[in-house]
């Protein structure tokens, strides 16, 4: 037989045999793959922020596809749109995503407090905190070296006047900054208008006063003025129970140091009497 023809026939028949075996195998041994996981993964934003409580978007998609009863509204960056798509894929009822936002409990910028030393070490809050609790006079407040900025997947945090500020339009409330902040001054809350104690210092009032003009001195004036008893001063620091708070702004009006600010969708504001214009701080 023609050697070329023979070679073609032999190689082709081996190839055909392999193909047949593979086809048969995939028919008989095939495992049905869950296509849902892939589809869900495509709807998720892919920021891998971990706000859902799973290891990244892949983990959440896999869990949703394989286990029953997992909420479809856990993706905070994706918000309602993503939750709707996931619910459609899984065929379950859609629930609203409670949108979250990060807030910073410190307003000790360079107009209110100052530094106790010139820090030239590693430019990270974590490192600076190890050296006498940071370079600021107040050991509780924002160090301002931007550990939160570096983890923010949305570029929603910037450092201005020496403290971190959150761009409420960009923040998706994933909570990575909350975990990263060595001072524990960032918390993630429901994205609603609220009053906010912008201080984290638990030292005595007189000490706080020397360090920062924005610091809570624990005078209990807000506690007395609150009509619903939502504020308590614990360890010289006012704390607001948001389950009770009715957002009447009485505390912000009466705070002698002005550390209770009004936080709304456009940022932080000091309380200003109703007849004058609201001034952005």
């Amino acid at each position, binding site marked *: 037989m023609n*050697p070329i023809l*023979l*070679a073609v026939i*032999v*190689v082709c028949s*081996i*190839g055909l045999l*392999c*193909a047949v*075996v*593979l086809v048969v*195998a*995939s028919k008989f*041994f*095939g*495992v049905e793959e869950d296509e849902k996981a892939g589809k869900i993964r495509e709807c998720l934003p892919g920021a891998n922020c971990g706000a859902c409580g799973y290891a990244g978007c892949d983990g959440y998609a896999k869990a949703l596809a394989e286990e029953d009863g997992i909420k479809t509204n856990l993706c905070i960056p994706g918000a309602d749109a993503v939750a709707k798509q996931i619910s459609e894929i899984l065929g379950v009822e859609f629930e609203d995503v409670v949108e979250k936002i990060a807030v910073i409990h410190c307003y000790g910028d360079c107009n209110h407090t100052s530094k106790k030393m010139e820090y030239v070490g590693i430019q990270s809050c974590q490192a600076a905190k190890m050296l006498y609790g940071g370079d600021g006079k107040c050991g509780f407040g924002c160090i301002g070296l931007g550990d939160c900025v570096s983890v923010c997947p949305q570029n929603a945090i910037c450092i201005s006047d020496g403290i971190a500020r959150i761009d409420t339009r960009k923040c998706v409330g994933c909570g990575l900054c909350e975990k990263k902040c060595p001072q524990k001054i960032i918390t993630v809350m429901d994205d609603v208008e609220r009053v906010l104690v912008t201080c984290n210092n638990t030292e005595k009032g007189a000490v706080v006063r020397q360090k920062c003009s924005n610091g809570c001195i624990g005078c209990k004036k807000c506690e007395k003025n609150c009509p619903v008893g939502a504020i308590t001063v614990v360890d010289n620091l006012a704390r607001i129970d948001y389950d009770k708070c009715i957002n009447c702004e009485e505390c912000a009006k009466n705070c002698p140091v002005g550390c209770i600010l009004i936080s709304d969708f456009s940022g932080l504001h000091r309380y200003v009497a109703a007849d004058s214009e609201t001034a952005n701080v």
Partner: protein
Amino acid sequence: MMKSLLIILMTSVLVNNYVLSRFLGICPFLGVSKKLNQAVGMGTAVIFVMLLSTAVTWPIHTFILAKYDLEYMKTIVFILVIASLVQLVEIILKKYIPALHAALGIYLPLITTNCAVLGVTLNNINDSYNFIESMVNSFGVGLGFLLAMVLFAGVRSRLENANPPEAFKGLPITLVSASIVALSFTGFTGVVGGLFA
């Protein structure tokens, strides 16, 4: 008989180490050697596939290709057979041993086109080994691959902490250190002859 098999085994593990002396299978060697557990996973998968593909390609060569004087087609036929074999094994593992499938994970399909696997099957033929010798040689080559991967994973974990000049960072310093590891393996030349003398 036993002695010649041992010589083949030791030669393929140490002297003719596929990665470090023959430079086959360099991509997985550089790609998957970053972490020790990944290196071990890849190495084990390679041993498994090498044994399987030798068990299939040797009969194909002896009983089909040699019979019709088609030995010159062996490269193409072997690529074809090994690729489908790995796919088949993946399908079956997924069905019956999902744990092993998950453990081998991405490494199994990666090996489909690994030149070390193709190399060992071709060299078995070129060295005119019989079936048992071929299997022993494949096992040895796989073991040598695992050894090289594990050793190099150790080297790389130290490289992580080293601070090479900017231009050497990443792949360049990895290649340089790989060549030094390869250099050290030349020390095994002649060892096997002495071992079983």
